[in-house]
C-alpha cells in the first residue's frame, strides 16, 4: 500500500478536526511571521504536540512487536531530572543531553531485557519501571523542582530554528529519520515479522531477542528526547508531573495512527499524525472556548471507537453476519484451529 493510502484516514480525520476547530475558532489556521519566527495556533500545536509525538515514535515500534511500553512517562521524568541535574551541576549542554539520552537507553534496555530475555509480558515488565520511575526521578532531583537558567539547554524547549520551534523540529526530524530508517533498511520488515509471528521469524533466522531489546531501547531514547523537551521548556525538572499520563497519550496516538495493538504492520508517520490529532483536540478544545476538562472524556471516547474498529471479535462477527446474509445456514466454527 502506498504511504498516502495508508495515512489517508488520519489525514482526513486531522483535516476534519481542523475544520471543526476553525468553525469554533476562525483564526486557527492563521499564521503570521514575527522577527524570524512563525506564530499561530498551528505552530503551537506542532510545538506542544512534541512530547507525545516523540513518545509515539518509539511506542509505534514497541507495539509493532506486539508489546507495550507503559514506562515512557516516568522515563521522561527520569531523563528530565538527569538533564536538569547535569545542567545545574555545571556540566554543560552536551554532556547533559548525552546523560539524559543514556538514561533513556538504559531504561529501555532494562525493559527490553525483562521482555525479551526474562520473558515477562511487556505490560507487566514495563509496569515495574512505571511504578518506581518517579521515585528514581525524585531521588535525582532530591524531591525539588530542579530549575536552571542555562539558555543553551532551554533552546531545546523554547528555541526557534528556521522559523519553527525547536521541539517541532525534533519530532519532525526524529520521526522522519525513524520512518526512513525503518523503510530504507530492513528493520521495518523484521520488526513486523516478529510482531506477527515471532516463532516463524526466529525459525527463518531473524534474531528476535536482539530486535525486541532494540525497540525498547528506541522507546527509551524517544522518551529521553521528550523528557529533554519538557524539561527545557519549563527550565526545570518536575519529577512528579513531567510526562504524567503521556504514556497513555502515546499509546492513543499509535492506535489513532491505525496501528494494531496486536502487533504487525506499522506506520510511524500515521502515529505522528495521531499525535497531532490528539494535540489539535487539546488545543482546539481550549481555543474553541470549551473547558479543558473535556479533553480526557473526548480521548476516552476516541479510544473506545478505535477499540471497536480494531476488535478481532467484532470483525469476525461482522464477517459471519455478512455471510449469513448471503448463505442462510450458518456454520459457527470455533476459532480453535483447523483439523
Amino acid at each position: 500500500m502506498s504511504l498516502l493510502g495508508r495515512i489517508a484516514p488520519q489525514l482526513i480525520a486531522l483535516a476534519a478536526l481542523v475544520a471543526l476547530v476553525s468553525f469554533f475558532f476562525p483564526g486557527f489556521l492563521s499564521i503570521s511571521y514575527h522577527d524570524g519566527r512563525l506564530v499561530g495556533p498551528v505552530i503551537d500545536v506542532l510545538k506542544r504536540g512534541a512530547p507525545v509525538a516523540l513518545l509515539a515514535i518509539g511506542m509505534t515500534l514497541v507495539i509493532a512487536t506486539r508489546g507495550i511500553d507503559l514506562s515512557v512517562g516516568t522515563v521522561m521524568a527520569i531523563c528530565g531530572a538527569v538533564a536538569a541535574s547535569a545542567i545545574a551541576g555545571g556540566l554543560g549542554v552536551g554532556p547533559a543531553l548525552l546523560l539524559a539520552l543514556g538514561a533513556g537507553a538504559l531504561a529501555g534496555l532494562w525493559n527490553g531485557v525483562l521482555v525479551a530475555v526474562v520473558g515477562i509480558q511487556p505490560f507487566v515488565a514495563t509496569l515495574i519501571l512505571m511504578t518506581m520511575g518517579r521515585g528514581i526521578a525524585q531521588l535525582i532531583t532530591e524531591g525539588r523542582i530542579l530549575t536552571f537558567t542555562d539558555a543553551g539547554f532551554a533552546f531545546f524547549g523554547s528555541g526557534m530554528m528556521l522559523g519553527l520551534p525547536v521541539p517541532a523540529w525534533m519530532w519532525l526530524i526524529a520521526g522522519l529519520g525513524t520512518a526512513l530508517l525503518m523503510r530504507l533498511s530492513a528493520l521495518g520488515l523484521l520488526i513486523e515479522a516478529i510482531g506477527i509471528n515471532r516463532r516463524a521469524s526466529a525459525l527463518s533466522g531473524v534474531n528476535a531477542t536482539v530486535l525486541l531489546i532494540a525497540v525498547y531501547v528506541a522507546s527509551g531514547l524517544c522518551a529521553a528526547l521528550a523528557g529533554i523537551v519538557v524539561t527545557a521548556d519549563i527550565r526545570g525538572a518536575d519529577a512528579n508531573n513531567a510526562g504524567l499520563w503521556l504514556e497513555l497519550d502515546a499509546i492513543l496516538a499509535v492506535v489513532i495512527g491505525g496501528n494494531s495493538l496486536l502487533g504487525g504492520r506499522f506506520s510511524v508517520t500515521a502515529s505522528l499524525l495521531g499525535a497531532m490529532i490528539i494535540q489539535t483536540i487539546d488545543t482546539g478544545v481550549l481555543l474553541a472556548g470549551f473547558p479543558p476538562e473535556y479533553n480526557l472524556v473526548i480521548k476516552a471516547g476516541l479510544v473506545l471507537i478505535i477499540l471497536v474498529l480494531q476488535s478481532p471479535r467484532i470483525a469476525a462477527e461482522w464477517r459471519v453476519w455478512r455471510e449469513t446474509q448471503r448463505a442462510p445456514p450458518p456454520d459457527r466454527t470455533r476459532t480453535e484451529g483447523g483439523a
Partner: protein
Amino acid sequence: MVLSIRSLTKSFPGTRALDAVDFDLAAGEVHALLGENGAGKSTLIKCLTGAYRRDGGEMVLDGQHIDPRSTVEAQDLGIGTVYQEVNLLPNLTVAQNLIFGREPRRFGLIDAATTRRAAREMLARYGLKIDVDRDLGSYSVAIQQIIAIARAVALSGKVLILDEPTASLDAREVEMVFDVVRGLRADGLGIVFVSHFLDQVFDLSDRVTVLRNGRKIVTAATADLSRVALIEHMLGRELEDEVETQSAEEPDADRPAFLRFEGYGRSGVVAPFDLGIAQGEVVGLAGLLGSGRTETAEMIFGVRPAQTGSARDMDGPLKLSSPAAAIAEGFGFAPEDRKTDGIVADLSIRENIILALQARRGWARPIGRAEQNRLAEDYIRRLDIRTTSREKPVGELSGGNQQKVVLARWLAMNPRFLILDEPTRGIDVGAHAEILRLIHELTEAGMAVMVISSEIDELVAVADRVIVLRDRSHVAELTGPRVTGDEIMRAIASEATDRRGQVPA
C-alpha cells in the same frame, strides 16, 4: 450400539476433513481410532464433542439423534472427553476440579467439607487415594489424567473419548491409566481411544477404525489385525507401483558424505545417532507420529540443539546452536506446522519469500525492492504459486500455496541442506506431485534434502535412503533397492513385533 455415526462429513476451506465417515461404538467396548496427522481423527472427535458443527451425516446416541453445539452440551448428552493436554485447571485443587460447577453449597457458600468428601468418593472408585486439597498441578500427569477421566465420567456417563491420553506418560503410568479404563469398560461405558502408540492400541482396544485423508479405511476387531496390516492401512500404499519405477532409475552410487553427524542426540528427545548425507541425496525419515522424526529435524536445525555428538562438513565442525546458526551453515527447514511455525500470515508473499534471506544479510543491508520483486516473481512462476499478486498476504493463500511460499523462502537462500517436515501435508493432489518433482530438481542441482513424511509412498518416491525411527531413536537405515514400501513398513513395525511375535514372515 451406544453410539453410531453415519456418513459424517466436515469440510474446511480447501480441504475435506471428513468424507462420509461411519463409526460405531458398543457399550463395554474400547474402540481405537487411528490415523496419522490430518487423517481426520481430531475433526471426528470435535464434531462428536460439539467443538465443530458437522456439514452432513448423522450421529445417534442411545437411539437419539444428537447435534451438540458445545462441549458442555455434549457432556450433558453423555459424551465426556479427556484430551492429551490435561484439560483441567492446574491452579485449582483436585477437589475443585472434580466438583467444578456442581459445588455443594450451604447458605449460598461452598461447603468445603462436603466438596472434599464428594471428591474423595469419586476418586475412591478408581483406587486413587490422594490429598484432594492440593493443587492439581502438583500431581503427575498420569494422576491428572485419571482425575480428568473421573470428572468426564461423572459428568457424562455414556461415552468416554480418550484423545491421546498417554502421550506424555511413561510405561508404568500408562498401565495405571489403562487399569482405570478397563474398569470403566467393565462397567459398560463405551470408550473411544485415540492413540498413535500401536502397542497401546493392541493392548487395550477391542476394535480398531483407521482413518486416512478424511475417509474411513477399515473397521476390524483388533485381534484380527496384524501390526503390518494396521500400519499399511494407516500409511496407505496406493502410489507404490508408479513410485518404485522412479526410484529404480536412480543409480545407487556410493556418494561421499559431505555432512556428517556423529553421536548426535539430546536426552529425552532423540537418542544419539550417526548419519552421513551426500550431495544431491534425499534422505527420508520414516516412523509413526511421535517417533522422533520432527525432533531429529529440530535438533539438526538448532531449534532444540543437540547435547551430545558432533556435526561436521568437509571443512570442519558445524555450529548448529540456533536456527540462525544453522542457516549460516547453509541449512534450511520448512516446518510441519505451516501456520504457527512457517508463514508470517500478515506479510505479503514477497516479504515471506525474502524473509530468511534478509535475516541472513542483516537489517542494515536491505534487499532492494526491484530485487525483491524479481525474486518473488521468479519463485511464484517456478513453483507455480497461485495468486493474483505477489503483494497478497500469505495468510489468504491455500495450504499448498502457503507451503510453496515457505519452500521459496528457503530456495531463495540457496541452501546446501534443506529439511522438509511433511512437505505435502494438507495440500491437494496436484500440488503434491509438483512438490515431489521440485525435490528431484533440487537434488539434481546438488542440494541435499531431508524429507520427513508419514506417507510411505512419498518417501519411496523421493528418497534415496530412508532412516526409520521408533521410540525416539533411529532403528534402521534402508538404501538402494531396499527403499520399498514393504521394507519401510516392516522396519517401522519390527522392533515391537519381535517382542510380540505377531508379524507374518
